[in-house]
Each structure stands twice: as C-alpha cells, then as structure tokens.
C-alpha cells in the first residue's frame, strides 16, 4: 500500500509542483490591476501549462484515443526509399516539422489582439493550443500516418466521400488566396514610405540569386557555407540600408507608396514562381528558415534576460468591440484574430504532408505533433509579450487607421490620448527616430509593431538605444523574408491547384511541363491574391481591418474541417466515447467562425458588416455623394464591388464549413450504427511494398 502511494508521489509529484507554479503564475498575471507585471510571469505560466498539457492530455490522447503502437510499422519503415519515406530521428524531425508550421501567423495575430489587453489573448492562446490546436496537429498526423502519409484532401475523400473532398480542395484554394493576400499586405504595410526597409528587403533578391548560383555551380550542395555567406550579406544590407535611407539621392529612390509596392509584389510573385527553384526560391528558403529559427531563439533569450514589464493593461476597454485596430467584440472576433498560435487549419496540410512519411516510430507522433504545436504557441506568447512591452500610446499610434489619427504627430497624439492612452507628439517623433523611420503613424499589419517590440527587447540586451534602428530593420527583414518565401512557394502551390481544378474540365491543362497552362495558371493564382492585396492596400481602414478577419475565419474553418475528419475517424474506430477530444474544439471553432462569418455578412454596423458597408456607399452614390476615401464615382463603385466580393467570400466559407460539418455528422452516425470498425487504415500486417 505504502509503496503504491510512494509510486504515485514519484510519478505525479514533480508534475503537481509544475502545476502549482503555473497556477500561481496565472494568478499573478490575472490579478494584477494597478501596476505593471513582469513579462516573465506570462512566460512561466505558459510553459507550465504546456508541460502539464503535454504530460497528461497528450498522453491520454496517445494511449486512449489513438492507441499508438510502438511495434506497428510506420509509412517510413514500410516504404523506406531513402528519399520521401525515411525513418528519421525524432528530434531532427521535430525541427523539420516546427520549421514548416511556424510562420507569420503566430507573430501577427497576437499583436493585433493586444488592443484588448494581454490577458484575453494569452488565455485564448493557452486554452486554444491545449484543447484545439495541438490536438488537431497531433490527430491529423496520426490519421495520415496510419494511411501511408496521405494528404488532407485525399483523407477527406477517402473517409468522408468524393463530394466533401472536392469541396475541401476548392475551399483550400480560396483560403490560400486570402492567406497570400494578407501576407503580402503585411509586407506592403511594413515597407511603404520606408526606404531603409525597402532597400534591405529588395537586396535579398540579388543576395538569394548569388547564393543560388554558388550552391549550383561553385560549391554545389554546401548549404551551411552558402547560408553563412548570405547571412553576412544580409547584415551588410541592413547596415547599408541606413545610409541609403539617409542619402538625398537614394533615399527618395527607394521610397514607395503602398500601391506602388503592391504592383511590384504582384510582378515579383509572377516572375518568382516561374523561375527555376534553385535560383531564387531554394536559397531564400535557407535564409528565411535559419533566420526564423535563430530569431525565435534570440527573442526567447532576450525576454529571459531583459525580463521586461508589460506596459499594456491586462484588459482594455476595447473588449466591447469599439477598438481602433480591428472591429468587433471579444466573442467571436478575438478567437478569429489569434488564428495561428492557438489553432491553425494550415497545420493540417503540413501534418498530412512530409512529416508523416518520416516518422520512425508511431509513438514519436506525440512529441512531434502535439509538442511541435506547443512550441508554435510559445512563439505566439512571445509575440504578445513583444507587443505589450511597448508604450500603449505608441501601440495605438502604430495600429490605428489614418482616418482616425490624421497624418501628423500632433493629430495622432491628440487622437490616441482621446482613446484613453496618453501620448505626446514628442514620443511619437522620438520613437520613429529611434527605429530609423520617418513615421510610425498607422503602420498597421502587426509587423512594424512587433519589430518595435523586438527592437525594444533585444536592444536592451545588446547594443542599447544606438542599435535600436538596426534591430528594428532586422526584425522587419526577418518577417519580410519568410513572407516572401511563402508568397513565392504559395503562388506555386496555388498554380498547381488551379491546374488540378481546371483539369477536371480540360484534362490537358494538367501538363505542368508545358508553358501555356503554366503561365495561365500562374496568372490566375497571382491575379486572385493580387486582387485582394490591391483592395487591402487602397482600403481607407488600412486593409488589415478587412482582410485579417477573413483570413482568420478561413484558417479556423480549415481547422474545423480537419477536426471534423478526425472526429469521423474516431467514430469509425468505434472509440466514440473519446470523441469529445475532437468534438469540443470542432464545435467551438464552428461556433466562432459561423458567428463571425454571419456578422461579417449581415451586421448592421458598416465597420463590421460587408453588406452594410456596401449599402452605405451605394446609398451615397445614388444621391450623387462621394464618401471618403473615394475621390470620384468610379472609386465609389470599386468600394461597393469589393465589399460585395468579400461578402460572397464570407458566404462561401460559411457554406463550406456547414457542408463539411453536415457530411461529417452523417459519416459519424453511419459509423456509430455500424457494428464494427470501418476506418480505412493501412493493414499493419502488410509487408513492405517492394
């Protein structure tokens, strides 16, 4: 008896201590009202939550729901070809998987969510990842791993049927278009009127090409060497950018407006996605991947060393939906705004991509799937910290639309002070000077705010105020670099999807080696995201206001679709008593996205509802009036058309999720009534395929 108790204490005692520490940290974070708290409490609370969730909840899922079997052959063992299917060390594979899922999403969403204070965003990031995001990544990885590493689209087709499969393929295409537009918009917002940023980001193109030639002809395959070379050149470009911006000749030459940058990006997207991969895409991928991992590690160390205080209140008055950064109340829009970092549908594409083909042992899936997503969530927590350690006055100056702030430091300071966050024109001018920019007013999109926060943290550790401008542009470059890689790779992916979809009607269109279909499909892909990008760049409310919620809705809907698939698989395995594991997050995501989608469509508030906004402009146009920012009747018509297209898109997303949920429920009921296992796993007894 006493030995049993002793074992219990030994097994669970340390975890109970971690739990107690986490609870204490959360209590401190949540109860502090009058004075600022140290950001380390946020970090400690998050890490304790992750540890406990990993030790207990992911183990429960692995043992009870999935029944992972260490003796069962994985696709990597069964189909081992040394190329696509290779049993891989789990730590190495963790790095691969994390690098593939981490991107701009977890960095931008929490920054935007900070307008409600850090507490709502932090709680959703933690609850969301433990109960929804990590569960989705882990479950999809499991489902794909048991089916020879097949893709999400194929899995939905096999387990739910052909029609849901085609709906999901079409939905994925739409989601990808919105994603690329919003990512490109973040870059445009960060580089507009910024010669320093524009110069450094543009110089990545020749640097990448030089690396490409080096790795192809001079020292083939030497990734380490070529990455170091590229990194040194990048740092020189950041330093040189300061001189370029200060030069009376080159400064203006690298200063572009939003619409100019928009057209340049569209042109770039088109050309980059048909160039040979070794010339531009692959070398820039090395730079962006290693820089991303390095910067994330650096930021974590920076927060640990500097231990900054959170300047933003725990909860601001904007939880009621009156905030200037994005419109809409806490429910459902906070859960839409923080998409990645809590739960991201895109991870379902990665978890059913290369990762399941590389797993050496089934039990590794827990560490890679669940653990990888916890790591991504930690990146989101760090982004939230970075946004909240800067002066709230500066935060709202950077993220509120120009329509509210005007364009001078005086008008902006007055407007932000009126919002309840006192600031002065001197603070605004000084912050801009510190980071080497002309202005910080209305630099929406998340990236510039995050860069100011990161520069604040890292410069406190290295270099002091003198290095702040360098770190700011380093952070901008880091984000722009992997966004450009995503735009390039994403345009390619979209192009292949277009070719697949058109080939349903015209089979010859699928020929990816002939120039005609390739160029047409690329043009369709670029045109689709370019349209939304242009719309966002010219939007008076800053574009992020319109596009980010659409992106959030689409991303969460993809997650709901993936979790529906997982629920169906649990029912088909006759383990429906554990189906709550996926039903709870699916139901929550459906509730959030359908409510948000509905409000985006039908809300009477023109700030939220697309149709209400269109009506307001249509009524004015009928009376012959011109509403700002439109300058003439053509622009009025354009705004009305944009609103209606956005409304159609929101309606399509709603239809998509309702359809998949319907098919999912039907499939669950059928599986529930069946008297035996009906899931379509690969037979574990199958001999190797060769």
């Amino acid at each position, binding site marked *: 008896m006493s030995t049993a108790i002793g074992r219990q204490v030994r097994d669970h005692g340390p975890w109970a201590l971690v739990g107690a520490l986490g609870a204490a940290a959360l209590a401190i974070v949540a109860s502090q009202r009058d004075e600022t708290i140290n950001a380390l409490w946020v970090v400690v609370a998050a890490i304790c939550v992750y540890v406990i969730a990993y030790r207990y909840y992911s183990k429960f899922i692995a043992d009870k729901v999935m029944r992972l079997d260490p003796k069962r052959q994985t696709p990597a063992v069964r189909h*081992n*070809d*040394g*190329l*696509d299917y*290779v049993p*891989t*060390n789990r*730590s*190495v*594979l*963790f*790095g*691969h998987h994390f*690098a*593939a*899922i*981490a*991107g*701009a*999403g977890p960095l931008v969403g929490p920054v935007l969510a900070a307008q409600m204070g850090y507490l709502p965003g932090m709680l959703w990031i933690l609850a969301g990842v433990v109960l929804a995001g990590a569960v989705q990544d882990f479950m999809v990885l499991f489902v794909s791993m048991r089916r020879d590493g097949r893709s999400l689209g194929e899995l939905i087709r096999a387990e739910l049927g052909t029609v849901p499969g085609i709906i999901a393929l079409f939905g994925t295409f739409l989601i990808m278009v919105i*994603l690329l537009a919003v*990512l490109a918009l973040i870059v445009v917002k960060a580089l507009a009127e910024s010669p320093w940023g524009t110069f450094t980001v543009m110089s990545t193109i020749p640097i990448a090409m030089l690396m490409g030639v080096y790795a192809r002809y001079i020292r*083939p*395959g030497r*990734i*380490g060497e070529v990455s170091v070379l590229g990194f040194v050149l990048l740092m020189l470009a950041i330093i040189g950018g300061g001189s370029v911006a200060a030069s009376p000749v080159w400064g203006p030459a690298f200063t572009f407006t939003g619409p100019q940058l928009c057209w340049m990006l569209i042109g770039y997207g088109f050309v980059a996605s048909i160039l040979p*991969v*070794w010339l531009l*895409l*692959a070398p820039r*991928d*090395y730079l962006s*991947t*290693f820089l991303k*991992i390095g910067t994330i590690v650096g930021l974590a160390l920076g927060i640990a060393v500097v231990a900054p205080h959170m300047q933003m209140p725990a909860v601001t008055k904007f939880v009621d939906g009156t905030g200037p950064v994005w419109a809409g109340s806490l429910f459902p829009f906070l859960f839409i705004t923080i*998409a*990645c970092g809590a739960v*991201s549908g*895109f*991870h379902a*594409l*990665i978890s059913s*991509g*290369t990762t399941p083909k*590389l797993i050496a042992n089934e039990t590794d899936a827990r560490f890679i799937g669940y653990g990888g997503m916890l790591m991504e969530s930690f990146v989101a927590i760090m982004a939230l910290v970075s946004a909240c350690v800067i002066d709230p006055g500066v935060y709202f100056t950077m993220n509120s639309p120009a329509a509210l702030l005007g364009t001078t430091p005086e008008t902006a300071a007055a407007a932000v002070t009126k919002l309840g966050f006192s600031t002065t024109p001197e603070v605004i001018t000084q912050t801009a000077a510190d980071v080497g920019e002309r202005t910080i007013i209305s630099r929406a999109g998340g990236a510039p705010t995050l860069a100011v926060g990161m520069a604040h943290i890292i410069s406190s550790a290295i270099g002091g105020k003198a290095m702040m401008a360098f770190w700011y542009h380093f952070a901008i470059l880091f984000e722009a670099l*992997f966004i450009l*890689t*995503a735009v390039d*790779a*994403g345009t*390619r*992916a979209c192009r*292949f*999807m277009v070719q697949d979809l058109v080939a349903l009607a015209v089979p010859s269109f699928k020929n*990816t*080696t002939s120039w005609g279909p390739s160029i047409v499909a690329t043009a369709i892909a670029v045109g689709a995201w370019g349209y939304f990008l242009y719309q966002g760049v010219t939007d008076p409310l800053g574009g992020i206001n319109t596009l980010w919620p659409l*992106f959030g809705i689409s*991303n969460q809907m993809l997650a709901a679709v993936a979790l529906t698939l997982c629920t169906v698989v649990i029912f088909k395995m006759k383990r429906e008593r554990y189906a709550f594991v996926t039903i709870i997050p699916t139901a929550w995501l459906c509730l959030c996205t359908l409510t948000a989608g509905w409000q985006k469509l039908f809300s009477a508030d023109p700030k939220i509802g697309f149709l209400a906004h269109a009506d307001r402009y249509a009524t004015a146009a009928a009376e012959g009036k011109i509403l700002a920012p439109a300058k003439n009747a053509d622009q009025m018509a354009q705004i009305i058309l944009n609103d209606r297209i956005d409304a159609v898109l929101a309606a399509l997303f709603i239809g998509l999720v309702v359809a998949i949920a319907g098919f999912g429920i039907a499939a669950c009921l059928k599986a529930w009534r069946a008297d035996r296992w009906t899931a379509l796993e690969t037979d574990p007894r199958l001999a190797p395929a*060769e």
Partner: protein
Amino acid sequence: MAMLQPQSLRSRLQTLSKCVCDGARLMVGQGDYAAYAAHIRQTHPDQAPMTELEFFRNRENARFGVGNTSGFRCC
C-alpha cells in the same frame, strides 16, 4: 571509467552536432545522403545510388519543383 568519460562526452557532442546539422538540413528539405546511399546499397545491390549532387538536386525539386507543394509554408 575516468578514461572513458571524456570520450563518451566527445561522442555525445558528435552525436549532438550531427543531430543539429541533420535537423538544419532537413528543415530546408535535404534528407540524409549517407542513410539514402546505405539504404540503396542494402536493398538494391544491383542499382547504383545517386551521387551526392544528384541527391541534392532531387531533393530540391521534390520540395519546390513542378507539381510539388510540400515546400509550402504555413502562415
């Protein structure tokens, strides 16, 4: 025992650095060439494995090349 310890430390460091290098290469889609070559020699003794350079280009194309979307990154 005292003789063994530095050696095991060194071998551990070697394992760690191989792990980090392999991890970094796999992050950009480049798998382990030695493992590939060993696998081909063992299972297909009649075939010559690709050279290291051919392997590199094969993996580059598999990540981003025509018809492939696996290099697509997340948001």
